[in-house]
Every structure is written in C-alpha cells, then in structure tokens.
C-alpha cells in the first residue's frame, strides 16, 4: 500500500528503480502497482474528475519513468515521486486553466444562498474542495498537498520545494480566503467556521 512507503523509500522501490535503470522495463510495473492509488488521488484532488485524474496520473508516471535516473535515493522515493507528479499536475493546470467543475456551489451562493441550506455534509465537503481549486495556485497547492499528506508540514514543504514557514503562511492565507468564500456554505451546516490553529 502507498501508505506504507509514504514516509520513506522502501526496499522494493529502490530495487525496482535499479532494475528499470538496468534495462528491465517490466520492473516499473511494481512501482505503478504500489503508487497508482497515491498519484491518482493527488490528481483527483486537483481536478475532481475521474477521467482527467487518471490521465494526469498516467502522464505523471511517464514523466517519472523518463526522469528515473535523476532519483538519487537521497530523498524518500515517495517524496521524489510525489514531487514529480505535483510538478506535472501544476504544469497541466497552468496550461489548461482550472478544471471545469460543472455547477459550482460556491459560485451559486451569490445567486441563491437559500438553495444551499439543505446541503448534505458530502455535498458541502465537495463544494469546499472545489472552492480550493479556485484559489490562486500557490494557496491551492499548499492546501491540497498539506491535507493530502495528512497535515505533515515538513513533508509537504519538501514536496512543494518551499520552506516550512512559507508553507505555514500560504496555508494561513489560503484558509482565510476559503473561509471568506465559503462562509455562507458553512452557515448552512449549523457549525460556523472558527479560526484554525
């Protein structure tokens, strides 16, 4: 499972990388099998569309394959692979613009706030996740990666290639923007937003 190797490179990963670099292409299948769920779910958080997420994850695996020789084993394989994937996703979103999210609940607030009162928790969560994607890229990336990494600040900063302090500042600013944009959405839940720690 990807979780197993999240914080450090496993022996299996290092062995498969060595085999691929030695010319055994089929060893890459092991890397794909172990990390497909992780890369797919990161892509999913960036686009909220299954087909697009699978396409983005496939592209990320191809980029990882092409640049496998740049993996020196100094960082954990999971960090290296996630960074490659993240850069790939960011490039794609930069080139194509934010994903088309259908009817955006956050934008719908401006038109008919009352319509959101009966939203279920899952719908509210989805609306917040989509609102994250509409944030400026630096805040979007910080929030997506931080929560994807289960709030591991150091690892998130490493993957994003920024200092922990910078990440903290971006998270704070990003949450503030989100709170402002989703304030009415949260009021419908009966649980007002409070300042995070």
């Amino acid at each position: 499972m990807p979780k197993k190797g999240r914080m450090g490179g496993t022996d299996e990963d290092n062995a498969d990388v060595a085999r691929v670099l030695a010319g055994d292409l089929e060893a890459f299948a092991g890397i794909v099998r172990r990390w497909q769920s992780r890369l797919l779910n990161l892509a999913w958080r960036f686009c909220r569309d299954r087909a697009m997420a699978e396409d983005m994850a496939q592209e990320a695996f191809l980029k990882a394959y092409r640049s496998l020789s740049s993996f020196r084993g100094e960082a954990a394989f999971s960090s290296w692979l996630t960074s490659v994937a993240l850069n790939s996703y960011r490039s794609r979103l930069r080139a194509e613009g934010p994903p088309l999210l259908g009817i955006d609940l956050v934008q719908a607030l401006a038109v008919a706030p009352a319509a959101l009162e009966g939203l279920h928790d899952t719908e509210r969560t989805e609306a917040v996740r989509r609102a994250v994607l509409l944030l400026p890229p630096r805040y979007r990336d910080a929030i997506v990666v931080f929560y994807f990494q289960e709030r591991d600040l150091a690892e998130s900063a490493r993957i994003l290639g920024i200092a922990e302090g910078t990440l903290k500042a971006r998270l704070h600013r990003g949450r503030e923007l989100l709170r402002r944009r989703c304030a009415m959405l949260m009021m419908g839940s009966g649980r007002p937003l409070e300042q995070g720690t």
Partner: protein
Amino acid sequence: MPDELERLLASNDPLEPSSGFAAGVMAAVRRQAAEPPPLPFPWLRFLVGVGACLLLAGAGAALWLSSGDALLNLVAPLAPVEAAGPELGYAALALAASALLARLPRALVR
C-alpha cells in the same frame, strides 16, 4: 468547537484506480521506451553558424567603413536603373546579392 473548514479539508474521499489503469500506464511506458531517443540539438553546428554570421557581419561592417567611395563606385552601374525607378534599383541589388550568395557555398567547398 472544532474548526469546520479544517474538518472538511481533512476528510478523505479516496478514489480507486479503474481496473485497467495500471495496464494502461505500462502500455504507455512501453510505447515510450520503444520510441527512438530524441535527437539532441546540434549545439556545435549552431555555435559555428552563429560565429560565422558574426564574423561576416563584422567583416562587412569593417569593409563598409574602410572602403569609403570605393563601395559607392561598386554600385554605380546600378544608378541608371535606379533613375528609371527606385524599386528597380532595389530589385537589381537584391538579385545581385542573391547571385553572390548562391555562389558562396560553391566557393567554400572548392
């Protein structure tokens, strides 16, 4: 009271890969591995070409500055043509330059 936004952001909604996803990725990887490596950019030739262009431009400028009236005398035969129509003068000059440039490669390989 727990932070509602924090709770929603931290909630997990995992997506399972479709059954053929890993096979599709491997097929794409195999396709890419089968492709010939991209041709490297010919930096050496590019730099030689740029160097030659700069050399010719410098030589041309030096010739222009040092020749004085001699260069004007060189294009003097075109004066009657230019008198008939300025655009004919430019066309004749372009033709002459083209003819010279066309001969240049042959002269260089000799």
